[in-house]
């Protein structure tokens, strides 16, 4: 059976969609089809990928308009009567074809205060933690840094707030640090000011595209918003501060 793929080809100066017809087999994912097209019709087509198992988060793209990993999107989940439309992530600058420049994300991470553990609990320099206390942080640490949540977030995608807003990926990162039972650092002032958590109006778009099913909005962002509000906007505390 043949299927049609309408793939965006171009670079920072612009580009266009090109149609490729290729045979497809049962069980194939979108990345398989892209590889087949690359090997037989378009050897210089740019695509970023690594593990092909949904673990590295490299092959992020927009498939029929939805941000997804190409390696985890099976063709039988798509309507092959129509061309499958493949585009690079819209939020980040184009490098070439399906590859975008995601370097902004790496710069953002550097600015978030690193992990700072409390003194070890035991004389041998180790800590004691209960599984129940780390369950929620382990959810955040499943993140594969595919940046699909950044891609879909309207604060970045539509409003281009690359200054003054860090995006869902880094709220999850900050939440993992803030909720780590060993951590002693305070990141609440930054979250309020330069990280711009207030810009998030919890539309849950990020959570809906997360390939690791991390409950980004409810488990990471909202609790962080609550911490900011507790610190700065609690009316009782405000009165005490004035007194």
């Amino acid at each position: 059976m043949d299927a049609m793929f309408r793939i965006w080809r171009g670079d920072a100066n612009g580009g266009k969609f090109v149609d490729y017809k290729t045979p497809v087999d049962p069980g194939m994912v979108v990345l398989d089809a892209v590889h087949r097209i690359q090997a037989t019709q378009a050897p210089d087509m740019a695509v970023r990928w690594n593990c092909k198992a949904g673990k590295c988060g490299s092959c992020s793209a927009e498939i029929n308009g939805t941000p997804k990993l190409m390696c985890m999107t099976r063709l039988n989940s798509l309507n092959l009567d129509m061309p499958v439309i493949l585009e690079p992530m819209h939020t980040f600058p184009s490098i070439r074809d399906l590859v975008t420049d995601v370097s902004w994300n790496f710069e953002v991470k550097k600015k978030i205060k690193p992990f700072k553990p409390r003194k070890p609990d035991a004389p041998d320099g180790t800590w004691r933690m209960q599984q129940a206390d780390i369950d929620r942080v382990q959810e955040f640490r499943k993140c594969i840094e595919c940046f699909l949540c950044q891609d879909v977030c309207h604060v970045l995608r539509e409003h281009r707030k690359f200054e003054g807003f860090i995006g869902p990926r880094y709220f999850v990162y900050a939440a993992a640090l803030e909720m780590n039972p060993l951590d002693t650092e305070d990141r609440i002032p930054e979250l309020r000011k330069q990280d711009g958590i207030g810009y998030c109006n919890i539309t849950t778009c990020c959570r809906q595209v997360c390939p690791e099913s991390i409950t980004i909005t409810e488990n990471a962002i909202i609790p962080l918003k609550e911490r900011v509000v507790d610190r700065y906007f609690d009316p009782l505390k405000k009165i005490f501060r004035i007194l």
Partner: protein
Amino acid sequence: MAEYQSYSYDVLVIGAGGAGLRAAIEAASKGVKVGVVCKSLLGKAHTVMAEGGVAAALANVDDRDNWRVHFTDTMRGGQYLNNWRMAELHAKEAPDRVRELEAWGALFDRTKDGRILQRNFGGHRYPRLAHVGDRTGLEMIRTLQDHGIHTGMEVHMECTVLTLLIDSGRIAGAFGYDREKGHFILWKAKAVVLATGGIGRAFKITSNSWEYTGDGHALAYRAGAELKDMEFVQFHPTGMVWPPSVRGILVTEGVRGEGGVLRNSEGKRFMFDDIPDLYKAQTADSEAEGWRYCTGDKNARRPPELLTRDHVARCINREVKAGRGSPHGGVFLDIAWIKQHIPKSEEHIKRKLPSMYHQFKQLADIDITKEPMEVGPTTHYMMGGISVDGDSQMSTLPGLFAAGEVAAGLHGANRLGGNSLSDLIVFGQRAGEYAAQFAKEHPAAAIDESQIQSTAAKALEPFERGPAAENPYAIQYDLQEKMQELVGIVRVESEMEQALEVVAALRERAAHAGIAGHRQYNNGWHTAMDLDQLLTVSEAITRAALLRKESRGAQFRDDYPNKDPEWSKYNIVIRRGSQGEMIVERRPIPPIPTELLKIIEEFK
């Protein structure tokens, strides 16, 4: 004259998986200037794929464990071809390296009393693998990445090294290109750490990502360093077999550690039929005992599914060849059956093996809490690599260090699961420390401009030949197909002789590879550049496998199906001759000190 950008470092680390990042962190902590080159984006290296855990004798779950038992297990697994010094250091230092990860933010699963939990794994006598569900590698690389970015190291993402630069017998730096723009880059360095991982992409069915093209092996070989143990390629017994497009993707050994069993098409647990003498005393003789082991009964022995990987892979291969395989040419791996023993087993499986649940559900429409998986052997790991000094990790080329999968020695003829992640952090740390020391003790080396220019000119040739010439993708596919067929899990002399001819012919074709377009993020060009490395390691694997006329560990020769005691005394080393020919010879293993020998006797 090709133009290039130039950077200068004390220590250059090539590769940013677990070993590379750990080396870079260590070197940076010694106050030297560190550069890191990675073939992908930071944090995407193959370490993310490691699932089961990191082996360290923490003795948190079973207090009988200690470094001596871990050392003995590693040596037995490696069939005593290991570099014993590395096996010793690894077993001694792994616990500290794991605890250090926790100090840097890693969150391992916990025991009831709040310590790091450890699980059972093939070949390890006691529960030894610290883990995070089945995504331990991701936890490790993220921890190292998030810690490393605050240590001052400079990271060059999506860059590929084409050649190492030499100055009068010592390392001088590296030369390569960045993918984004296709520009050439020179990295001058007083010391270089290779941490480039493995060679899985030389084979068709593999659990490895596209980067695993043997770059470090080939770069070091061409620079004059020695390779060792190249015949030992580990075929992991359980890769996915269906659908075809995911064939080879890893199914963690953790499935078997949690009680998963292997059955053939007749429903029989065939692993009970073939238990090697070396492991008889430690293996369960009934299904009931095997299950008790998986639930933590200290008096039970492990089920035969947890025998070493080489053995399990061959047993699966045998069942399939005998016509007792599953519909798509594998066997059945069943974890769903534990519902007989565990209430709410579905929740239990999803909690213990979340990635596996997800992977099968999404890629194969299989719910592993209800039905068995189909699995078969997949090319997984390279035991062989750059020959290094056990303490410093320096290769035979002064100033060139190697750590992780690209280095040889720790694993001997076969690696135990979990010993790879610990290898990365133990020897990454050591390589970083000694590379920093080397950089402090030596002045900058001179750069040979002619080597740079000839490398650049050669790299650009495929563009001149254009798309009508040989297709680099087709050459790579043909190599993978033939290596799988001729130098795979069961080897025989005539087929390997044939493989050498195939490699020579493909080398000829690779010299005529052509590509379309320009240098900016051109996957066709990248594929053409990787061919040279893949062909070099394929030849090395084949020549070493031909010379070792016996079956041991991961190497199984159909024409020499037994272990030969004579061969237990030798490693095979490979180096480049003065005419560019590949020299393959056997080298006696240095005698093991009596105190280590005593330990092996005691815990055997």
